[in-house]
């Protein structure tokens, strides 16, 4: 990574898209404060409360779904948590242990956990990777709705262009190492909407703007 710079507005969702190995996950780790071996500056919004959804759910197998969420958000009110569980269709699973959940459910719990802290900055590292397409789409809708309601700054890492277009207000294309921002493309359509024509048009624009490197993006 070299000379990489970008900013985020409150309530905005940006998606980092780029070839694998260009350091997207590393970038998220730096922002989350997990990687300290870098030169540069990360400035946080006012409170800087962080919510993170890792590539794997990273739940505590020995605590129930509800405890997993409550442990990171001890001050969250019962009503808030109930609404959150409701939206993610989790109420039946409150007292289940993570070992009893499917991957898709576990990812939903990870989403609930990240939102329970009421984050100012939400970091999502390929949150729906290795889920079947239909489930990924549903989870994407749930995520879009959560972001709309709570409007944190959101940074999404994805190599699925449809997913990025569906969720983000702005796409940031990264080049292979050294990673730089190749192009910034705003997404006009509302979050969570899946208008195939719009997506196709955006894809065409992306291809035009990124001329040769566009082939790097799988979808």
């Amino acid at each position, binding site marked *: 990574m070299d000379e990489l710079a970008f900013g985020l507005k409150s309530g905005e969702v940006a998606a980092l898209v780029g070839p694998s190995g260009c350091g997207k996950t590393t970038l998220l780790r730096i922002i989350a404060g*997990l990687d300290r071996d870098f030169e540069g500056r990360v400035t946080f919004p006012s409170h800087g409360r*962080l919510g993170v959804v890792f590539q794997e759910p990273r739940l505590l197998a020995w605590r129930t779904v509800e405890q997993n969420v409550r442990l990171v958000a001890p001050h969250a009110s019962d009503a808030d948590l109930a609404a959150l569980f409701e939206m993610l269709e989790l109420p039946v699973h409150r007292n289940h242990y993570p*070992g009893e959940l499917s991957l898709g459910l576990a990812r939903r719990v990870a989403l609930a956990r990240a939102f329970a802290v009421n984050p100012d900055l939400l970091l999502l590292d390929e949150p729906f990777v290795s889920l079947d397409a239909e489930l990924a789409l549903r989870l994407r809708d749930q995520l879009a709705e959560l972001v709309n309601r709570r409007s944190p700054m959101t940074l999404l890492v994805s190599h699925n262009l449809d997913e990025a277009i569906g969720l983000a207000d702005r796409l940031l294309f990264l080049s292979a190492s050294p990673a730089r921002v190749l192009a910034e493309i705003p997404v006009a359509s509302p979050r969570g909407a899946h208008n195939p024509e719009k997506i196709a048009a955006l894809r065409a624009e992306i291809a035009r703007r990124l001329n040769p490197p566009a082939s790097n993006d799988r979808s």
Partner: protein
Amino acid sequence: MGWRLLSLGLLIAAWYAGSLFAGERLLPAPQVVALAMLDEARSGALALNLGVTLARVAAAFIIAMALGSALGLIMGRSRVSDRLGDPWLIVLLNLPALVIIVLAYIWAGLTETAAVSAVALNKLPIATVTVREGARSLDTALDEMAQVFRMRAWTRIRHVMLPQLAPYLAAAARSGLSLVWKIVLIVELLGRPNGVGFEIGVAFQLFDVTRILAYALAFVAVMLAVETLLVQPLERHIARWRQRPA
């Protein structure tokens, strides 16, 4: 359960047959030992000696587990302290229990402190090594999760770390308990005026096998009770999240 009872019955039968073969002096029959046990119980000596020994076992066990867990955790997490502490551990692990006990009595006198610390010191390296193994296998992914969500230190220890260490702590506790009580008896034999070990020492000088067996079996029964009433329910509670089928 039925098979266990059968096995126990066979043991007593074999004991009885052995006593017929070897004679009353070398191996008294089960009912003779039981009567001796009853006698000691009536005079109050049995309860007193069992109580004193149990208190020493508990004290040494708790000290060794607490110190061993702390040391193991530090050594498992920091490479420098692991390198520094490892030779000490190897020395302690290979020092015979008897040497530690005798030296403790010489240096600190024939006191309760010397007795309990000698036992704790014998158990310490094993607890340390076991917990160190657990600390090395802590999941860094969960550590990072706790870090980014800014979990408080106590929450982290209680809900993230301890459940991962639980199997190692249980293993250390289990092997530790049986080791500690065996060493406590030696400590009592060598330098204490009461306890099961002391009584067995006296009985040894009189070649009183009945008394030796009476005290030994009474104490085995107590430790069996500790195991079934304390250790096993605790283990079941800790492992409750594993039991439900997926």
